[in-house]
């Protein structure tokens, strides 16, 4: 399984903060994104290819090509606005 985590506007609009997803056929973050985009509703809109999405794998900043393994924690979130 891959542990998906969502933050801020993504968490609110999707109505979920975390979810376990089977890792079959998911070899990198982009594979996961494509699978999520096939869902109904806000998923396809929020995660569309033209959206600015930040991503982290195991709590380190990542990009769509970062490889994924069974047990990884993947976070998706809008651009950060701290400080």
């Amino acid at each position, binding site marked *: 399984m891959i542990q998906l*985590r969502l*933050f*801020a*506007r993504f968490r*609110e609009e999707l109505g979920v903060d975390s979810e376990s997803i089977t890792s079959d056929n998911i070899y990198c973050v982009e594979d996961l994104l494509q699978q999520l985009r096939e869902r109904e509703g806000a998923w396809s809109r929020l995660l569309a290819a033209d959206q*600015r999405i930040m991503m*982290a794998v195991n*709590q*380190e*900043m990542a990009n769509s090509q970062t490889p994924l393994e069974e047990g990884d924690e993947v*976070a998706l*979130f*809008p*651009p*950060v*606005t*701290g*400080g």
Partner: protein
Amino acid sequence: MFSISIESEPFDPNLEVDLLRGDNPAIGAVVSFVGLMRDLNDGDRVDHLFLEHYPGMTEKALEKIVSVAFERWSLQGCRVVHRVGALKPTDPIVLVAVASSHRKEAFKACEFIIDYLKTQAPFWKKEATENGERWVDARQSDDEAIRQWSEENN
């Protein structure tokens, strides 16, 4: 050599600067940045602010940024504090304080750390304005601020 903390209650930036200085007579320069909550943003009155973060990743991201600053400049110490949760106007949001023997290193490291914090640390601001709640958008100027650090060699 450095301290990073995430605080859910108001913190005192002055205390952090005192802890950074200690009694160390090798410190010749302390540069500190305090980011404060304003009551106006993008033209609207802001009543309060909620700061969300990604516990675990936040600390790792800040440690990495500060570690890079220590590799890049000769520093005597650094303290970073970031508020999370509910804030009101005039509350300190973030403190970055850097100590070094000479001032140029402290200025550069302090600005480097806040610039990277703004674009790489997982915090998100939600404002409660007179027109309702809204997530704050990232600023393009913050992305641009990062670029100077790859262009310059020192």
